[in-house]
């Protein structure tokens, strides 16, 4: 993991303007921005870790906890919202016992709330990894999660 971070940081120069591209590269390589990554970037750019964290948290694209092996996304874009996306999210939160942005204790799932994934016709949608589940209703949530959980165990 350390290697991955270093690899991601290496190509960039020491100029402050590289902060966002470096953060993006680290997230691409390592899936999230760890404490370790921030302190490495801090050493390189000579900016404090707090300043970097501050900048990074300003953008919603960055994640600061290690994501689970499977990413569960629930859409709350306008179309999904009016068709009950909020209830889907609520049910997912309860099923996984985490809030959006968090990861389950066994690191199997992370939950994210997204705003439109571009298939409004299928609303409300839920996405697990790359699989899109259209027209979900609350009672489906448990089944979908269970399916992925059993698959996860087999892996």
């Amino acid at each position, binding site marked *: 993991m350390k290697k991955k971070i270093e690899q991601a940081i290496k190509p960039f120069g020491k100029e402050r303007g590289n902060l966002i591209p470096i953060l993006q590269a680290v997230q691409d390589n390592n899936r999230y921005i760890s404490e370790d990554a921030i302190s490495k970037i801090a050493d390189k750019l000579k900016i404090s*870790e*707090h300043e970097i964290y501050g900048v990074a948290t300003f953008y919603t694209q960055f994640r*600061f906890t290690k994501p689970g092996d499977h990413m569960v996304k629930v859409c709350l874009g306008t179309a999904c919202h009016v068709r009950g996306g909020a209830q889907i999210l609520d049910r997912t939160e309860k099923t996984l016992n985490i809030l959006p942005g968090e990861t389950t204790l066994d690191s199997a799932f992370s939950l994210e709330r997204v705003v439109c994934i571009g298939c409004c016709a299928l609303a409300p949608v839920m996405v697990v990894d790359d699989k899109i589940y259209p027209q979900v209703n609350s009672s489906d949530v448990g089944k979908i999660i269970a399916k992925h959980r059993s698959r996860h165990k087999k892996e």
Partner: protein
Amino acid sequence: MLTIDGKEVDFKEGATVLDVAKNNGIYIPTLCTHSGLLPFGACRLCLVRIENMRGFPPACTTPAAKGMKIITNDLELNDLRKNVLELILSEHPHSCIICDQKELCEKYNLSPTKAGRVTGCTFCPNRDHCELKKVAEYLGIKEIRFPFTYKNFPLEREDPFFDRDYNLCILCGRCVRVCQETRGIGAISFINRGHDTKIGTAFGKSHLDGGCQFCGACVDACPTGALSARGSKWPGVPDKVTTTTCALCSVGCSLKLETKWDKIMAVRPDAEGPANQGQACVRGRFSIPALVNGANRLKYPLIRQNNRLVPVTWDEAAELAAVKLGKYLPRETAFLASPFLTNEAAYLLQKFARVCLCTNNIDTASFFSGPVIESQIKCSGMGAGAGTIEDIAKSGWIIIIGDDLLASHPVLTVKVNQARKQGAAVSLIGSERDINSRLVDICVSVEPSGYFPLISGILKIIVEKGGFDKNFVTGQCNDFDKLKNSLKKINIKTIAGTCGIAQDLIEKLTSTILASGRGSILYGPKILECDDPGQIIGLLFNILLLAGSPSGIVPLRDEANSQGVGDMGALPNFLPGYQHIADKDSLAVFENSWSAKLPNKPGLSYPDILDAAIKGSIKALYVTGGGIPREISLKQLDFLALHDIYPSPLFETADIVFPAAAFTEEDGTITSLERRVQPLYAGANPAGMSMPDWKIICMIAEKMNVKGFEFSSASEVFDEICKVNPLISGHGIWDLKLKGKFTLTPVEKTARPKRSILYEKPLWHYRGVDLTEKVSDIKILREKIFGGQDVQGSP
């Protein structure tokens, strides 16, 4: 020229509209602006009207321009500002601001209530200093027309020194900016965005884990009660405020002592302080009350009777000291001047030693003092560094060598940071742990044994590349050829090998000097671990001379008045003003003004006094606060007298203990590392029956029936100092009179001289009192930052 509120005024290039208003006595309410910080434009309170500009531009970020017509106040602007402030207050506990019983409440509620959470000004530790409250009063806020939100952040009280209640935070960013811009630390930041924005640290770390230095700059910058010093937030309005000088290190920050019930309750940095301009550090800002108010401060003179120290009157103690001291031969007597004594006390102590006891066995109790003074005299003719704190801020390059600057002289890092922002390259020679690596550009990590080869290498490159200031060197420096010849044998590659560093690092460091003219060199006590510290100082001085200016060298002595105590002649070989004791004319002058016959042979130095006391050839020792390393036993002594503020391990052997006043309890002067003579003013009376050191000395002299010690105040002593010491004529930086020719020091490998061992000492101390022992939060901090380890040097 521009017009502001109908008045035609001039303005300086680069001024903002706010600056112009201020300079012309026009008040515009502001919250996010703070002196010394760049304009930020976050609070929107300073909105003004400018002809031909759309909307209402903020005065703080709008540059003044020729022909502008500015209106700073009218009904509409006032309404607008009220609206802005009401919005801010809708997320800030404001019950007291809009309460119609406010005035009575403030009058009779003398200090803030120690409620768990602040729900209004009556409960707020900041209520006597609050800018938010003042602005609300100015704008006449009577109601808040928006629904109130309490952000419900948890109170943050886990860190040492100060508490944080971000429910009071208005997100003005002053704390973040002062920490980043001014201090160069960046321990806090804006976290998240939009409605979730708050001030915090990466991953919600504690300040202790996040690298905060607890300098308190953020607390002082905060316009609200969000940040508050824990130890001193409840006493309410102080009875009096006294501006004095910090005596905890040699930077010489001006501080404001807040006194209540004759106790120092709080301390804030003085914005007008010539050395610190409103900055301070964890010691000056947070630890003074605990340091000086300890319950076991010495309150009575003590003398040894039946092998116990028992309290007696001043009269008895002074009488006994006079009788005892009179019994010994001059060569059996010695005095150690604490480098924390005031100039007045140090002056009288050496006068006492020389006049009353006819001995030159007096020295400053610091290992860094002797070698530093000696080589400084060689270089610049006087026992002082040749740089000022402002020089540091204006340097084109800076070298810090042999010191953990951030821990030892935190406010100097502010100046280093200032220079760096204007393009100065900052190099650190020492260990990487020595400083936050973000504060330097080049870090050469070598042990003190590598300083000599490294500096020789730097000199070689400068001389060979020919990038030095030829005019200055030929015109004002002697011995250039000697230096050049001595550099011939040196090989950069070998040096790099010896020091274990890359050759191009030495070249890179040197190129910063060659590139940018005037610089500063700050050297610290670790050079004492070199074979020949005196030569190292000479070689460092060479670098400055080659760069074309003799000024810019600053010794980083820890103790607050090590400069002044030396200036006052508390040295074995110098009279006040660095006049050599063997110089007949100088001696005659002093014999004349003191009406006494003076000893004319140099006395023992500090390390020699310690050795002699251990061996027993010194029989009577007079110690004025610290200076005796813990490992040393003074059992051989016949007589030991102490000035102390707290009980110390020496109490086992002491025959007389005089309780001394702390620096917050006496008037006088001390002299900072930039030779700035600054006043001390008492913020409280001396604890118990303790007395300022100078008075104690006078009392004993009187008992010995010696004339010349009849002073009724410290300022009378200072008057005499000004008369006899040609360097000192009043407050302010004394003139080094740097002119004439300077001598370059050749590079010579010297054998390790016989030298006393260096003793461990606490890094942060005052007169031998370890701050970690008196201030519990300092202990927590020290253990965190330094893993509890101490640096080497004198106690």
